């Protein structure tokens, strides 16, 4: 028993000795979530103050990731075109109500949208035909200029390799 308290004493002394050393080299960066700008309440108050943005505009803010009118069938990012309205609404509610750490991207995206905005987007995407917007050969005529040729296809490239036929 005495031994145990002695051990505890030495451990405490060691910790006390070490603390100033640790404090002298603080790691200035914190791995915390950073949340800022206006609060969610202010965000919703502002949304209420002005006419709602058009459904076309709201839905178009999704385009950079989900494609024009939600019509890109990406390998990771799913299309939105043709998604049943209620499924879209339910998904957005799930993102808004759950802990956003549980989702890859959409948890932090869905947060500031109002009910009306979500309904408008859901109705917009439901109407879009679920067909890929981009024709497969849309960019096949690119000729890389002479000055840039040395930066073409590289063994380290992580682009999915196309199958070649001899």
């Amino acid at each position, binding site marked *: 028993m005495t031994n145990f308290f002695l051990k505890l004493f030495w451990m405490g002394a060691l910790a006390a000795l070490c603390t100033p050393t640790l404090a002298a080299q603080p790691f200035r960066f914190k791995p915390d979530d950073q949340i800022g700008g206006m609060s969610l309440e202010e*965000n919703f108050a502002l949304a209420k103050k002005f006419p709602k943005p058009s459904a076309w505009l709201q839905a178009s803010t999704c385009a950079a990731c989900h494609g024009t009118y939600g019509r890109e069938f990406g390998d990771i990012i799913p299309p939105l075109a043709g998604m049943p309205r209620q499924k879209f609404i339910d998904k957005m509610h799930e993102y808004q109500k759950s802990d956003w750490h549980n989702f890859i991207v959409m948890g932090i995206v869905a947060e500031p949208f109002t009910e009306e905005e979500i309904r408008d987007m859901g109705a917009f995407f439901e109407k879009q035909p679920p067909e890929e917007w981009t024709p497969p050969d849309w960019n096949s005529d690119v000729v890389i200029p002479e000055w840039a040729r040395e*930066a073409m296809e590289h063994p380290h490239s992580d682009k999915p390799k196309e199958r070649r036929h001899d």
Partner: protein
Amino acid sequence: MTNSRARPHDLSRRDVLKFLGAAALTTGLLTASKKAFAKDARHLVIVGGGIGGSAAAKYMRLLNPDVKITIIEPDDLYMFCPGSNEVIVGWAGIEEITVSYTTLKNRYAINFVKDRATAIDFDKKSVRLANGDPIRYDKLIVSPGPQFVYEAIEGYNKDLAYGEFPAAWHVSPQTITLRRQIHQLKPGGTVIISSPEYPYRCPPAPYERASFICGFLKERNPTAKVIILDSKDSFIFDNNYPFYWQKEFGFGTDKAMIEWIGRSDGGRVVKLDAENHAVITENGQVHHGDVINIVPPHKAHRFCFDNDLVENDWCPVEFKNFESKRHKDVHIIGDSVDGDPMPKTGYLASNQARITVQAINDEWHDRPIGTPFLINDCVAMAGKNWGMSLMETFRYAGEGKRLEERYIIPGPAKNPAKHLVLKNVAKNWQRTFHKDIFS
């Protein structure tokens, strides 16, 4: 979110034919409209065929089949800045970030004038080309990108940037030079990256670049070192990058492959000593580098200065429709805009383009101009297998007021697999983004 509908590679031959038929119909409609432009059709003229200008052209066509649309652009191709850091370290080929204007021309009936715009005549509503020809407009959208102020660093200039000291902040021969320098760095060499004060194009990009270069060197040249000299005391994603660097490159230890010096510790570069291959910081410290990559401060494009669109280095606009506060019927989008709190990103340029064309189209149809709403969902990377994302939304706060921002920048995830997925999201986003603007 998943969608159970078939993906293209699952389609049957019949489905493919059906799909091609639909595509042909869309193309046909738009081409027909090109031939049928009325003599009194309105003319939207766009200066610059980058992300902002091209998105404006495509989305105006989606809203309005009858308007004539012209882009003034001297280049035949566009090379995306997003993805160019991958090109520098050889993780992507330059063809993966290069697009042609063919689809914009053919599918959306957009007219391209291969020249440089020089002067706006606001009374006659026309814009003059370098060859002297005027082009009349009903509405003008100016989307020229930023101007790099190389001379803000004493001893630095454009010639040196195209020579031995590439900035590579826009895809150009400078990008290729930097790529070559990194690939040929001597064993144990030092790479210096100088990051500027705000505002500049793509705030996380200097740190992504440093991180990529460090990852590349760890495999090929592990005694080499990367030093970031920063004109700021904090940076975007500073809740992520330092932790990745700690994990991968011993950041914060004696054996660190990467070092970050903030402004308070003398990180702000004020001078380039080209002869001795060194930079000098605000507090007089001299840093020698085998590769010196200075990201220069920015201001609005020269075209904006030449045409009275600038106040305090940037173009003031009304955020309802991005119309210039100085001249009517001229709208400015992208990196030349005084858009604070919006950062300067391609993502935002594309959303600004959509707001602008919707507002112009509303005005032409005597409808009230819609309320703007913008998002910037940045997906950046720290390494080949490590991605991260942030979300910013911008709401309209009234006439004459700046937009109001809300943001979330998640710190590192408990489950590292999330960052691998986010890397794949980032690459997927790049490909989709190219298509959203150019296809």
